[in-house]
């Protein structure tokens, strides 16, 4: 499967949540909004996870008060991650992904959903 649009990546996030029991288990106690911003297109996406009860992904939506804010330098970085053309650690160290806000405890839970 190839990821060539943000929509396809977001769909994959939704699928991982809905079909992967391990991912759901990890998020069983998680209910804080996650804001993702793509700096090249200035597009924002809001992930709303309601523990293991469901996930709602809102495109072109932002929440200034979101406790977790992640910036991607470009939309392509997300495609590359989902296409396994770049690893998350390399993307972090190259400055392509930046955690603007967020506690390490929460970020760890999101890894299997997003990376």
């Amino acid at each position, binding site marked *: 499967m190839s990821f060539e649009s943000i929509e396809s990546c977001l769909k994959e996030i939704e699928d991982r949540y809905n079909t992967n029991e391990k991912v759901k288990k990890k998020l069983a*106690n998680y209910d804080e909004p996650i804001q993702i911003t793509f700096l090249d297109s200035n597009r924002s996406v809001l992930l709303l996870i309601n523990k293991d009860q469901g996930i709602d992904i809102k495109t072109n939506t932002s929440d200034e008060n979101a406790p977790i804010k992640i910036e991607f330098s470009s939309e392509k970085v997300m495609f590359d991650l989902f296409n396994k053309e770049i690893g998350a*650690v390399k993307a*972090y160290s190259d400055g392509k992904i930046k955690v603007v806000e967020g506690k*390490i*405890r929460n970020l760890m839970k999101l890894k299997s959903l997003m990376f």
Partner: protein
Amino acid sequence: MNNSIERIISIDISSNSIKIALVSDHLRIEHTTRQNIKIYNEDIDGFSKRIDMNDLWYKIKFAINDIIKNHKTTDLNIIGISTCAQRIACVFLDKDGEPIYGGPNTDVRGIDSAYLIDDAFSEEELFEITAHNPSLLFCLARLLWFKEEEEENYKRIHKILMLDDWLGYKLSGVIYTDLTSLAESQLIDIKKGNWSSEIIEEFDIDPNLFPPILESGSQIGYLNSDLIPSFKTKNKNIPIFKNGADTQLSLLGMGAINKGDLGISLGTTAPLHLVLEKPYIDPNMTFWTSYHSIPGRYILEAHAGNTGELYNWFKKSFLKYISEDPDTLIASFLKHSKPGALSTFAYLGPELMNIKNQTSIKRGVFVFPPPMMISDALPTLKDFARSIIENIAFGIYENFNALKKFQITNVFCGGGMSKSKEILKVIANVLNTNLIVPEYKDTSFIGGAMNVLIALEYFKDYKTIIDELIKFEIIENDPSLIDKYTQLYLQWKNIKKKIDNL
């Protein structure tokens, strides 16, 4: 004490290499050898890393033979083999004693399983028990990773060892652990000095998986008889002494043994360890509490980050093609430049310990005056080299400053970078304190040999060994530079606040 010259083989599995030394009973390092450790990534992300354990054991045997072979005299009398290893690294053995997993201190596979720990314990509760964070780094998270991701392998785990426990086991055939190793496992209660029943019960871990705990420096047995022919040693009964964490042995080798002594290990990283008589749990959950190699003493750790790694990167990337001896070149650069020369600053990692809040990998930055028509004062390689050493010194200073409230009496330095007097002078001046530096900078070798001499009762205590056998040099700070470095640090820090947001 016996007057004949007897030797100790001192082994250290450090972050990047296996280092082995032949040390005399007068604590003279006579020969050293080094082999790189093979570490490989298990995933594209680089979170999961593994040590090639077969390669590691092969290289240890090779290096021991190399040490023995290079000793020209025929009367080599080895009175003991001392072991220590990098912290955090751990090994899971099956029932036949074969490694199912051996992970280095850089393996963060626990990122996938630490949620189990974080759901079971609050940050405060866990730190109160273990005095360490974040949970993704340690043995407990790795163990739970196997439970979650490789259940079959998890079921095969027969013993949970720290890396030095494994080394002791391979040499002697018996399995023990010690508190200096276990402090970085998140499996023990730091104040009680034993396996944490709360953690073990919470995760339903079989207590039979844990080895018995001995004091650091204890004799655990004798060299495995199977190994004697391959090591070509004359002695048939060579005692094996298990020490645990290499940084704690470095403290011994530096002479940092008393309450208030601060030891700065200038190795791949730069931990600062303050010796305490009682465990202190940092209420801010920033600094780690562990055990000193001397029973009954504790250490509080602040950590300046990848200092030696940065130094080696600079040598390899910028100086390799212009000098065969980059260490001397850097020393010469420091000698012939002034503090903060041309306002050139480096931001390449070393800083105040803040692991628990580290969610991003910061960008590396040099700040310097660029080539412009209005100025002909431009930094050269010399100034960039100085800026890196000053970055390392400022990182150490921030941690030193944070530990100052505990009354630091003496500051000791050891490790690879302490071989450069010019680097030590910069650190002494930035810290505004004298540094006490032992003759041998490979202090873990000396610490390991000291523990052997104590265990064999060649000496009655550590103070006597240090007084009789270790020579020190004092690197004095220059009072005329205090104001200059204070200003430079503030300037560096102000720019850092902006750079951290890049």
